[in-house]
């Protein structure tokens, strides 16, 4: 098993999650990385993703698990020679078995296009449309922390099974700051699993 950490930026920010699955399988075919296939009636390549990223958001920390016997260094080099702009891999980790990031990731850090400031998020309510219906949701429990990253606001948000889409917080933040931020200016910088009640960076788990 190889886990690739890759970015999703520039034009690739606008590739939807469903389209991303097709993109990745094409990159792997072009790169001639031999991927093991599942058994059964409709065999498919054994690749696994970390939780989906909201459309338009940049990420410096997406993960892709590939079931292959090829060494990590070669997978990394081949992948990068065959990937379109904005979807290149940063590093590759070898692991014994599938780390199942889809299920294990519980949080992610997002840097927002606003200068850092201490904000009280208790009782924060967001509004959005779900299947055409307006929804109001108290998301304070899904905002784990806020910190200063290079002068910018960085929020750690629930990600995965319990999820808070980073773009849905924009309107709230716009209200607080009195300016308009764009989804395309949000950058995801890290993903975390939870171990003994603590957040552990996925990179630390893999290396």
């Amino acid at each position, binding site marked *: 098993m190889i886990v690739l950490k890759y970015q999703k930026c*520039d*034009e*690739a*920010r*606008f*590739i*939807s999650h*469903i*389209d991303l699955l*097709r*993109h990745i*399988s*094409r*990159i*792997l*075919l*072009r*790169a001639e990385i031999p991927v093991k*296939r599942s058994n059964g009636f409709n*065999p498919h*390549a054994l690749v696994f993703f970390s939780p989906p990223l909201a*459309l*338009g958001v940049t990420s410096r920390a997406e993960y892709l698990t590939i079931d292959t016997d090829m060494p990590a260094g070669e997978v990394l080099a081949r992948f990068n020679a*065959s*990937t*379109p*702009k*904005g979807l290149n891999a940063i590093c590759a980790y070898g692991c014994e078995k599938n780390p199942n990031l889809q299920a294990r990731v519980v949080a992610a850090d997002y840097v927002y296009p606003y200068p850092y400031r201490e904000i009280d998020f208790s009782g924060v309510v967001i509004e959005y449309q779900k299947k055409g219906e307006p929804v109001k949701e108290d998301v304070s429990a899904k905002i784990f922390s806020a910190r200063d990253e290079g002068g910018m606001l960085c929020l750690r948000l629930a990600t995965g099974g319990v999820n808070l889409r980073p*773009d849905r917080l924009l309107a709230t933040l716009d209200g607080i700051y009195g300016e308009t931020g*764009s*989804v*395309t200016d949000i950058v995801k910088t890290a993903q975390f699993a939870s171990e003994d009640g603590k957040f552990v960076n996925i990179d630390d788990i893999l290396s």
Partner: protein
Amino acid sequence: MADFVSEFEKLLPEVEKPGRYSGGEWNTPDMSSPARGDMCFCFPDLYEIGMSNLGVQILYDIINRAEGFRAERCFAPALDMAKKLREHGIPLLSIETKKPVKDFTVVGVSIGFELLYTNVLYMMDLAGITFRAKDRKEEDAIVIAGGPCSVNPEPFAPFFDAIVCGEGEDADLELLRRVAEGREKGLTRAQILNSIADIEGVYVPSLKREGYRVKKAVVKDFENAPYISKPLVPTVESVHDRATLELYRGCASGCRFCQAGFWYRPIRERSAKRCAELAKDMLKSTGFGELSLCSLSTSDYTGLEALEDELSPYCRERGITMALPSLRISSFKPDMAKDSRKSSLTFAPEAGTQRLRDVINKNVSEAEIDKISVAFEAGYDSIKLYFMMGLPTETDEDIAGIAEICRRLKRLYMEKRPKRGLNISVSCAVFIPKPCTPFQWEEQISFEEMKRRQFYLRGLLREIKGVSFSWHGAETSVLEAALARGDRRLSYVIEDAYRAGACFDGWSEHFKWDVWQAAFEGRGLTMQMFTRARDLDEELPWDFIDVGVDKKYLAKERELAYRGVTTKNCREGCNGCGALKMGRCTIL
């Protein structure tokens, strides 16, 4: 030049499927070096449709390979994006470098379907391009059209400075080169248009006088003609999201209703060896999981077996599916589908009785329909049948024949697999008489008659279990027929219809029948004036284009049709259609 890039990017998260506009597709050529001349290919439909268009990709590739020239793309934005562009005062931009479309040396619109005519204006409007060529200013881009609709360009001719009739492989690059040169030399617009008028296939509407003729452009050396070795890989799933290989051009069958079959003559095949090389190159460079072998009648291709032998192991090793569309019943073999995971067969008998199939020269006999049982034996239990309604000489008996074919297939199926059930889906289009066919003089049945026949067929099919029926809208068929055989007067109708809100006419949810009717009436015209029967000696709006196939040949074919006499497949010998004077039919 204003820079719209950052403003444009901000719009992307707010629209549906932003990947339609973002660019950055794999295999996009490097656009960083300066170009002497550039061309923006505009496709008047959504990204998902346009990215599946083979012609545009081939021409795009040719220009980008030429030293000093560049091609970019632009597709019709969906309505939500168009609204945003207008709100923010951003003109239509190219996908690659986000350059305003109107600032290109040449703007090339590919028109493949009559119901896209209003979308051409929609794109011009969003781009800020003046609709009528005669009103354009000296420095404005040269706006040209090409694509299958160039078979009768008259309805849209006034919107273009030039139209490439036929195959653009050689003409487009030459045209771009001459326009760029003309600009460098400081020639006037009129001089530039004069300088491109003698390129084979190029029609300059403003130069059309009595006796003006245009010779259709034809790729002579099809075997070695450039082909896209590195197709762009779409960002958003497109309708044909796969590698597509064109095996040959033209068609030997001679179905009398089929425009493409006559328009793309002479018949030129690529060798199986070259096809296999091209296919592998494409698959390697794209990573597509599916390969489609495409031509007007793929299963007639001389080298099909050799090609399959060459490609099957390659595809199997990599888990790539091979798709064979438009199979002809007469050439179906069960092992043809062995590498395809499809469980549904598609056949197009086109007409319900042998008599009518003879009229249209669709070479499918009753005995051959019976051969479908081979497919049932091979495990197929779902079949799609394509028919046409309103063909010349059609009677209710022919329509009843469609239901009869369904019953017959069900019987055949039951003999092979009595325990299961067969699903048949019948799709019925309305016959549209098209230019450059033996039926170019025919009338289209009236709107009321279409409705009556559709109703009649639906009633008959309802009685058969397991058959579903779908049909094309009668309204769009009438409009398509009127536009297909129209003349320059229709340019006003198209413009009026666009201004009154017609757009994306090919999408049933956007089609506005009343707007179109009013647009015709407003100009003192009716659709029936264009769907009527034409006299054989009448001058037709597209007569000035030399397509190779002689008008006399078409008339003779028409006469044979009325006598119910078939014409043999060109693979059995030349029928003397006249296309040979434009190049060799390689199947002979």
